[in-house]
Structure formats: C-alpha cells, structure tokens
C-alpha cells in the first residue's frame, strides 16, 4: 500500500527533531525516546532548551515554528555542552 503522506512527514519530522537535538543539544543517541511516549521525556526537555534559546514558544513539542527553525542552515558547533 502507498504510505500515507502525512504519516511519512510525521516520521521525517521525528527524525529531524532527534537528529537536531543529538547534534546540538547533546541528546544521547541510544536514548531513542518517542514523542508520543508518556512519562519522563528527555527529548521534550531538550526541545524546550532549544525553544528557549531561539526565543520560540516553549512547548516541548515540535510545532511548526520549531521545525522551521531546525530546518535552517546553521553552524555545526553545539549550543550547549562542550564541543570537545
């Protein structure tokens, strides 16, 4: 069956968010939390950190403005934690 385009976009967005937070907010790679998972959500905390830095609405959710910001070309040095 063809993939539902909306579902496909959602999957891409989750990948983008995880990769971005791993690269720039020290989200652990083996953590693999999922956005819809309840309880303590490390990814949501990192997302809030990112949103706060960029002056976005701090929701802990990958809303439109957050995804737009993550899609912008940028410097590869992380915003938090020591690089080396």
């Amino acid at each position: 069956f063809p993939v539902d385009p909306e579902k496909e976009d959602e999957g891409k967005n989750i990948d983008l968010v995880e990769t971005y937070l791993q690269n720039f907010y020290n989200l652990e790679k083996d953590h693999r939390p999922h956005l819809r998972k309840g309880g303590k959500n490390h990814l949501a905390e990192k997302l809030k950190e990112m949103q706060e830095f960029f002056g976005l609405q701090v929701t802990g959710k990958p809303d439109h403005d957050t995804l737009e910001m993550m899609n912008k070309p940028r410097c590869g040095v992380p915003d938090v934690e020591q690089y080396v």
Partner: protein
Amino acid sequence: FTTGNPKWKKNNLTYRIVNYTRKMRQTDVDAAIQKALNVWSSVTPLTFQKTKDKIADIMISFEYRDHKDNSPFDGPDGQLAHAFQPGEGLGGDVHLDDEEAWTKDGRGYNLFIVVAHELGHSLGLSHSNDPGALMYPNYAYTDPKEFRLPQDDIDGIQAIYGQSNDAVQPTGPTTPQACDPNLTFDAITTLRGEMMFFKGRYMLRKHPERSETELNFISLFWPNLPSGIQAAYENIERDEILLFKGNEDKYWVVRGYDIAYGYPKPIYRLGFPKTVKRVNAAYSDETTGKTYFFVADRYWRYDENKKSMDHGYPRKIIQDFGKIGRVDAVFQKDGYVYFFHGTTQFQFDPRAKRIVNQMKSISWFNC
C-alpha cells in the same frame, strides 16, 4: 562564552588555509578569509599572520562528510561549518563543509559570513541567542560590503581579549527589540494587510491577527536591499511597495518578494529636484490616489494616476499636518495617517486635518 572560558594566551595568532573549495576562485577565498579575520582583529588587540606550510594556530580547511574529528558533515545545507575552541591540536581550527554552495556574494552561502562566525568559536566565543549577532547559530546573509560586527559580538570578544588598541573604540549595531521604549524607525509601510517596520538591516513584521511581532532581516525577503530603507509606501491598487534607501537617491518597486524589472531608478523620475538626495518618509492615500513624500521639513504630493508631482509643492509639513515638523516614518491605516518622529507617534485625521492622538512609537506591538 565557551564552557571553561578557553582563550588564546597570546595576541599574535597564525592561520593557514589548508586547502581550497572548487566552488570559488582561490583569490576570492583568500579575500573572504582575510576579511573575516579583520572582523575580529579590528575590535581586539589580536593579530593574524598567514603561514603556508607550518602548523598554524587556526587551520582552515574544506572538509567532506566524515573528516575524522567525530563531527561528520551532512552534505548540502544543514550544518555548514564548525570550529574548535582555542587550544592545541584541533583547537582553533575551522572546518567548512565542502558540499555547500560557497560564494562571495548573496547566492548560496557567503563564505566570509560563515568564516567570520566560525572564527568567533576559534577565539573562544560560543553561540549567542541575539538573532542579530554574528554568533547566532543560524546562517543569515549580510552584504559583506555593508557588514558591521554587531555590538553583542564586540562585547563578547572584548570581554575575552580586551579592547582594540585604536584610540577610537569601535561600536556596532544592536538588534531592535519591539518593546524597547527607545526604539525608533527608519520607515514603515503596510503590505497586504500587515505592517512592516524597517530599522537598519531589520524588519519588524506585525500581522493584525497575531499578537507577536516577527523580527526578520530585510535580506531574507529582498537580498538586494539588505539595509537602510529610509522610506516605504504601499500602492494597494497596484499591489506593490516602493522602497527608498538613504543617501542613494534611488527607489525600488517591489511586487511580492520580487524587485520589479528596471529598478532601482533615480528618485528624480518621480519629479523631485536634483537637490533632493533622500526621502525620509512616504505614504499613499488610496482614496485620492495621492502619495505624500516627506523630505526634511517639507513635503511633496505625487499623483499616482497622472504620474507626476502636483503643482504648488513642496510645502512646509507644519503648515498642513498640525504640529508635526519632521517625519522619520509614516503610514496610513484605516483612514488615519500615523506619523513617527523619534519615539513619538502622532495619529492624524486627514478629514479633520488635525492630530487626534499621540502615542509611543512602539504602540503597535502589544507590549
């Protein structure tokens, strides 16, 4: 600052361009890097000397994907470059993603802007959350010819290395904040129901249905007009805006995101005498088809239908607009004309020909 406050222990640093990209001529790469180094040396006591073969403090190279520093590049777009904090070995080095479309102008990614940012890291700066700062993590194009290091970056680097040795200390532009009571504007216009407030290389964009104000670089919309818009007005009938840049005695017609073909044109084409070098403010009255241009303490009236200046102008602004003498910016909305002078705004009723209200200039931003 970078965690641990790393800094170079000496002021005379060396740099080496390890290799070149094929996207640009070598002389253009050299020039971009030299200019980027000057950005920092002009505001601190730091000096940079080029070396050709030796290991230098700052090694600048173009790299591809995994380049053995545990931070692989990701191909076109995304991550453009990275740099290491001051220190031995990799410390201070700048890596540029060789898969990016590097340029010396506004197409693709401007090498000078990116290298200048990365050198900030090489010297010990971390990312800034000031969206106008050079050290803001996201790429934003500024015409290299008009580039001035923002004050946020000057403050940061001088806190590490001290002030410049020059007698006159450099200063830089600050990022406008919508709720700053001291904020003044260069120009204001409506655009398809929104309001655009121009300030330096920024544009504050306010939609009447949205509570927040968006801050953008002018270059995001119009790369050829990156800063210094001194007057702007919307011609609703033709769905276009006219933009006037300071001291260039030229104007641009913008339709949507595109600059109309054949522009800029000299402002004399609108009927101004050659003695007029800049327009301070302008608005167009959609009901009468008349456009008002404000220059120093006088104003001209232009007929959009006849495409010529009306006779009997210029007139003194103060003669016809109440106590308003000089104008920084003006726009018309819902039948009223809003004049801005410094931090003060006057609401003028053109039917009654009098000022009906006086407010702070930032009154539109829900502060």
